[in-house]
């Protein structure tokens, strides 16, 4: 290893509005070294590398590559300086060939002759040097995910990158593909490349890296040589100081959760191209309890959420709500009384251009309660605007939605108020089943507390609540049981008291708790733990 760092960051800081994404980050990287950037989503890893690569401009601090200051916000300069990025979401044109994707941007546009042969040879040389099998003439659309990643990597290599940034490279790879990636990385470092490896998976990080930097809430909370680090210490650093879980402000249901599970998944599997799969997932939520699904984003939570909002059907296994199989389709789930709070409030949860009043009825437009009386009016679907307004009025009053008028378009409300409205709309009819997906992201403290209160009150009423969240503090504050999602598998759901920071950090990073699966509620036999 050389003594001069090939990459040096000093005091890099970046704000997005009120959010401090990177807080005074300084680190360095040497040739032949693998530096792992560890942290949960929102820790600031992606922002940091985007600054490195010129997609963002830092508010303060400098980036030096090979001793020379990099002009901020200039991707071409970063590329020219030898920095290459392998994005998490590949930037490949599917209808073009491997060679064409690699050649993109390599030559000045006014040139008439393309140096295809030369680039092709360069490509094949790089491919064989690092054992990355690839067919230059193949259309990217025909390649598997692992093969596409190879193309992404080769793009950087052919450009002569000496510093390679890999952003969650194993997120969509099979175990075998991950293995061959690791072997490739070893070859890279042997030939003097420097690597930045972003991941939330502890096993990989321990295996692949020489040094580890842990980011949390934008700050660097730990920097260590991998040989000196332990999984437990890393996990705890990632997850941070979890205060003793505050006692719930609302008492749980008398006698504890009991009865038939209202939400049941039995060995559910689902694969979606381009998304993390669900592997053999089982869970049960009883009336009167809140089950939280923790985990770093991208481990299958979105697939689970779409399954549980009725938008998709499992390919294997069984899914039951209230003891019954529901047909696929949001309509059926809504009619069955399932309350769904989506992750993306403006994109999915409401019709942004429509008024507050209209949004109160948007999900049950054909419900006789929303229509004018009379046979003809019902058939034609004539809306009873007065009833709808009073329903909207009820929601905004009971749920304290700050607004100017019920007629204003809902997208003009602040995020917190939109969310309160959605929660109000969904909980208005006291549903027995509630699926909440990241219900409090981006909300201010008051709105967060409010949403939590509503969920806990619902629990007290006897509802079964499934909470998917990346916010551990939230989970520890309101959940009765916690299960952790990793790589498409769900851990056992254990009572909150049995989890602590270290344990959950490990589970989120791939190391399942050794404890035997505790009670999952009636009706479930031995559940699968995490396979590592």
């Amino acid at each position, binding site marked *: 290893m050389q003594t001069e760092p090939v990459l040096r960051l000093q005091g890099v800081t970046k704000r997005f509005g009120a959010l401090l994404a990177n807080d005074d980050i300084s680190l360095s990287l040497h040739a032949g070294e693998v530096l792992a950037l560890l942290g949960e989503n929102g820790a600031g890893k992606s922002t940091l590398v985007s600054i490195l690569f*010129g997609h963002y401009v830092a508010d303060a601090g400098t980036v030096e590559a090979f001793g020379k200051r990099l002009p901020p916000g*200039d991707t071409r300069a970063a590329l020219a300086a030898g920095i290459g990025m392998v994005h998490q979401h590949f930037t490949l044109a599917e209808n073009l060939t491997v060679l064409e994707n690699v050649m993109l941007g390599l030559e000045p546009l006014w040139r008439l002759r393309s140096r295809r042969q030369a680039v092709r040879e360069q490509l094949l040389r790089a491919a064989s040097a690092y054992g990355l099998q690839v067919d230059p003439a193949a259309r990217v659309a025909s390649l598997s995910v692992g093969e596409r990643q190879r193309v992404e990597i080769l793009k950087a290599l052919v450009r002569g990158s000496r510093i390679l940034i890999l952003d969650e490279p194993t997120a969509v790879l099979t175990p075998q593909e991950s293995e061959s990636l690791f072997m490739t990385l070893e070859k890279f470092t042997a030939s003097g490349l420097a690597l930045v490896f972003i991941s939330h998976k502890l096993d990989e990080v321990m295996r692949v890296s020489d040094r580890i930097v842990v980011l949390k809430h934008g700050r660097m909370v730990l920097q260590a040589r991998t040989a000196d680090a332990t999984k437990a210490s890393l996990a705890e650093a990632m997850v941070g100081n979890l205060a003793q879980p505050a006692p719930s402000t609302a008492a749980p249901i008398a006698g504890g959760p009991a009865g038939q599970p209202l939400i049941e998944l039995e060995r559910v599997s689902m694969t979606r191209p381009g998304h993390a799969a669900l592997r053999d997932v089982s869970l049960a939520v009883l009336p009167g309890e809140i089950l939280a699904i923790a985990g770093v984003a991208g481990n299958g939570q979105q697939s689970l959420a779409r399954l549980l909002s009725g938008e998709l059907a499992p390919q294997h296994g069984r899914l039951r709500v209230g003891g019954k199989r529901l047909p696929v389709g949001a*309509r059926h789930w809504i009619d069955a009384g399932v309350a769904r709070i989506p992750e993306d409030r403006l994109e999915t949860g409401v*019709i942004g251009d429509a008024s507050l009043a209209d949004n109160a009825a948007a999900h049950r437009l*054909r419900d006789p309660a929303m*229509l004018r009386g009379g046979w003809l009016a019902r058939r034609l*679907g*004539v*809306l009873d605007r007065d009833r709808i307004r009073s329903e909207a009025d009820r929601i905004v009053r009971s749920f304290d939605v700050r607004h100017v008028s019920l007629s204003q378009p809902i997208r*003009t409300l602040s995020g917190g108020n939109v969310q309160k409205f959605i929660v109000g709309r969904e909980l208005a009819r006291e549903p027995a089943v509630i699926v909440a997906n990241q219900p409090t992201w981006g909300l201010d403290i008051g709105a967060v507390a409010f949403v939590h209160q509503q969920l806990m009150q619902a629990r007290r009423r006897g509802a079964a609540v499934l909470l998917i969240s990346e916010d551990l503090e939230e989970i520890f504050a309101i959940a009765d049981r916690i299960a952790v999602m990793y790589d498409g598998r769900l851990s056992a759901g254990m009572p909150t008291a049995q989890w602590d920071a270290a344990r959950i950090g490990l589970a989120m990073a791939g190391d399942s708790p050794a404890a035997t699966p505790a009670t999952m509620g009636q009706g479930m036999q031995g559940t699968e733990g995490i396979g590592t």
Partner: protein
Amino acid sequence: MRLERRETASRTALVLAPLAAIGVTLLVCALLVAWAGAPVGRTYLLLLEGGFGSRFALTETLTRATPLILTGLAVAVAFRARLFNIGAEGQFYAGALAAVAVGGLHQGTGFGLPDSLLYGLMVLAAMGAGALLLIVPAWLKTRLAVDEVVTTLLLNFVALLFVSAMLDGPMKDPTALGWPQSVAIKPELEFGRLLERSRLHSGFLWAIGAALVLQWINRATALGFEMSAVGSNPRAASFLGMRVSAVMLKTAVISGALAGLAGAAEVAGRTGYVTLDMSPGYGYTGIVIAMLAGLSPLRVVVAAIFVAGILVGADSMSRVVGVPNYIADVIVAVSLLTMLVASLLVQYRLRPSRPTGT
């Protein structure tokens, strides 16, 4: 300079935007009028007078506006649900042909049905023909994600060729010499005159009625809301339980029917029979009108009358000052483009761009 989205649509911009658009239009067209060597002010005045300044002008304008209102509504209802119906022209002809088939093919026998029933069937047939022509592209869009812009555009030609084949063959008027034209509609089935000594016919009432019905559907019914929701945010609409495909198909039926009705109105109200040049591009002008009206049914009526007035006024103005009547089409075209740009200023504001990155 760059565009930055406003949080709330600016009130002032909402009013200023169309005014700015009209202003720019008048300016650009004034240059063209001056080039023709005519006095600008007088030309514009004559234009207005020719379109709205006399009983005759008004009735002509409203007659001209009738098919434009209907095709404008057809396009507006479709675009609102993000179904880009470029095929109103073909649906117009399909409707006209169907109307003549029901209203005239019976060689005076009336198929043995009373006139009132036949009248209703004629209108229904026209609406059905137009709807059918749009259902196919709409179905392809919902099922196979085939882009409806190209399919509806192509079907215009197919429809026109079909009409041409019919006019040469089964539906040919044996008494007509020269140009191919269809059999005529039974005179009793024609849309009656609204005012004597004018060409204004009851088709105009159909058009106004359609606008009112559409406005009511949009405002007061579940379907109206669904169409708007699907057009503005299909993902959320689907999440909220709306059946997006079904909504699209219903929209296609309504849109196609309106365009078909436009064809029936022209045949039964103005010409009496179908010819290949019946429509000077009503289907395409309908798109312009729908955009000018911001896709709102009542504003479509206003926009259609405005455009019709300009087209009619241009003819008479042209006879007086000699400015070619094509100035009317230029005015309409420039209005469309300026409205398009102006609408942007309602949603976004201009800001000097920052030096690098975000």
